[in-house]
């Protein structure tokens, strides 16, 4: 299975994606950026929308 895929490409692009995520969060406006480790509030479920 490992030989079937180019592992260097997968790892390389994967690491690039992580780097891009870091840069994106640093460049995002303060109201749209998030803390690196953490989560968000779970909102109250709205009433069911009638079909």
């Amino acid at each position, binding site marked *: 299975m490992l030989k*079937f*895929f*180019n592992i260097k*490409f*997968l790892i390389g*692009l*994967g690491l*690039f*994606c*992580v780097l*891009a*995520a*870091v840069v*994106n*969060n640093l460049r*995002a406006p303060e*109201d*749209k*950026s*998030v*803390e*690196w*480790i*953490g*989560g*968000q*509030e*779970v*909102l109250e*479920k*709205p009433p*069911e*929308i009638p*079909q």
Partner: protein
Amino acid sequence: MKTIPAIFLFFATLLFTMGVFEISFPDIFSLTNYGIISWKYNIHLGITDCLISALLIVPAWRINKEFTQKILTVLIRLGIGGMFIFASYFKIADPKGFAILIAQYQFLPHNLVNLWALILPQFEFWFGLALIVTPFVKECTLVILAMFASFMIALIWALALDLGITCGCFQIDGAQSKAEAWTALIRDLVLIVPTSWLLTRKNRSIIKEVIC
């Protein structure tokens, strides 16, 4: 002989695209909005379109297998890659909004929500782009299939817990009716089929796929 397969593939592509849109946005892309056909569940129309499109590929395949394979490969790479690029846009632009959406699924541990919200859209964008512009078809397909699997697991989880949230696939809005989670799940199940087929293709650039 390429003309007849091309005609079949043209209509197959048209029907499949329409089918996916009808499944994804049943309120917008449906003949029932114009009073032509009174079907209550527009998603059935979308699934039917996708099945008919699959049937149209059969005669094209039998007439000229190599040509059909090339065209399908190019179309699927462009379609799936383009869809992931498009889907990633709003998530990259608004990491906090996407993180809030992920939190509503109540699936990931709290401390991983923000990280996932930052990293997943980058994987969507870059692997979607790589599927189109690089020759690494199998590798990109593997990652895209893994993302599809993660979306489906999250949607099944949300439906099982009756969370009543939106998919968050192409937009970030507040919680919506769970019908949207169902349509997103069915759409992903449909799209996994052509995506999986790409694993059988050789690693090659799109240009070489067309020329050679």
